[in-house]
């Protein structure tokens, strides 16, 4: 089947097998591999994208369900070479190791800060509780969120 999805502001089309997830379609068919395939069961948040503005796991969206909808991926955050404030904060805080969780965390953090410009530590922890990181122990990720929120 053919789906049409507005990704990071531009319309894209792809032919999909009907059982494909939005994540698979983004990564393998639509040219947006930034969202990561870590668990494909909604447990790790590495594939976090905004679907019509809501933070979701792309692995749990049927590609066909995104047909005609808006998706924002990690690739849509930077303005050319200028990193999004959250991305820059992740770089500066040393929040990136292997980086496989990073795209999902960057999207989830951008979503959090867009809703809550100065989150408390508890709010940061709860908002990011669906994004697993295996390398950092999260400390530098929290640093990055606080840095991006202008509270560091």
């Amino acid at each position, binding site marked *: *089947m053919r789906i049409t999805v507005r990704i990071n502001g531009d319309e894209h089309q792809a032919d999909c*097998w*009907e*059982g494909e*997830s939005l994540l698979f379609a983004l990564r393998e068919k639509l040219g947006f591999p930034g969202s990561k395939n870590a668990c*494909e*069961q*909604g*447990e790790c*948040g590495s594939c*976090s994208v905004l679907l019509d503005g*809501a*933070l*979701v*796991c792309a*692995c*749990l*969206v*049927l590609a*066909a*369900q995104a*047909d005609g909808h808006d998706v924002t991926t990690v690739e849509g955050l930077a303005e050319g070479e200028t990193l999004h404030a959250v991305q820059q904060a992740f770089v500066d805080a040393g929040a990136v190791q292997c980086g496989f969780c990073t795209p999902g965390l960057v999207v*989830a953090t951008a979503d959090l800060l867009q809703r809550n410009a100065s989150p408390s530590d508890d709010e940061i922890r*709860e*908002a990011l*509780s*669906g*994004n697993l990181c295996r390398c950092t122990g999260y400390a530098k990720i929290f640093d990055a969120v606080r840095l991006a929120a202008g509270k560091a």
Partner: protein
Amino acid sequence: MDVLTPRSLDEALQLKAEHPDAWPIQGGTDVMVALNFDRGRPATMLNLNEVQELRGWWRGDGSLRLGSGLTYAEIEHGELRTVLPALAEASRTVGSPQIRNRGTIGGNLATSSPAGDALPPLLIEDAVVECASVRGTREVPLGDFVTGVKRNALAADELITAVVVAPSGAAQTFMKIGPRNAMVIAVVSLAVSAGDELRASFGSASPKPVLVTAPRAEAAGFPAQVAGAATPIDDVRGTRAYRVHALEVLTRRALERVLA
């Protein structure tokens, strides 16, 4: 495989009648895991995302009608928080924010897992499940709707359209035990209310939801009564003995909250 995307409830019911084997998919938080891990390959998927009638919630005469497409995030953050507090507390424990943005109350009912977090808080509020088909609509009390582990009374041509509940206004709470401090499937969960009587229902401790009640005067024996009503098993998430023990502790603590 085909994906059918109806734009109205009538169309959805028509398609479900024509394709009784179709897998309905709303939030996808259970269905997509089954697809991604090859646990099933339906001939037809019925995508309910575009059916506006299933979304949101409304007040009726003395009752609330929660659309089957109502998400946990909408329950957790909206006005329902004050009307159905245990359901809102339960919603906050479901998966991650990403899951709560997608997962729906209808999906939780349709999956009919013993661990379904929405079931205990709905059962203590005497929720009724609205099942619709081209043949008409019927209302099934939640206690009758779930018939066993991942089994329910939904007919092949039916869809869950709503959950109807008349909020009791009773003091209530929800608690859930997992092996870590977020993002867990319940090892055991519990909803308790104290209105005209004491009410409790638990998750992951019986094949289908059980409602336990007692007069308020019998609060002292209620924790043991609740634990005694459970019929849990040993599995990868926990042991039978622990679940029974934890239910008694949780019920005692819940009563301290709701009787305060």
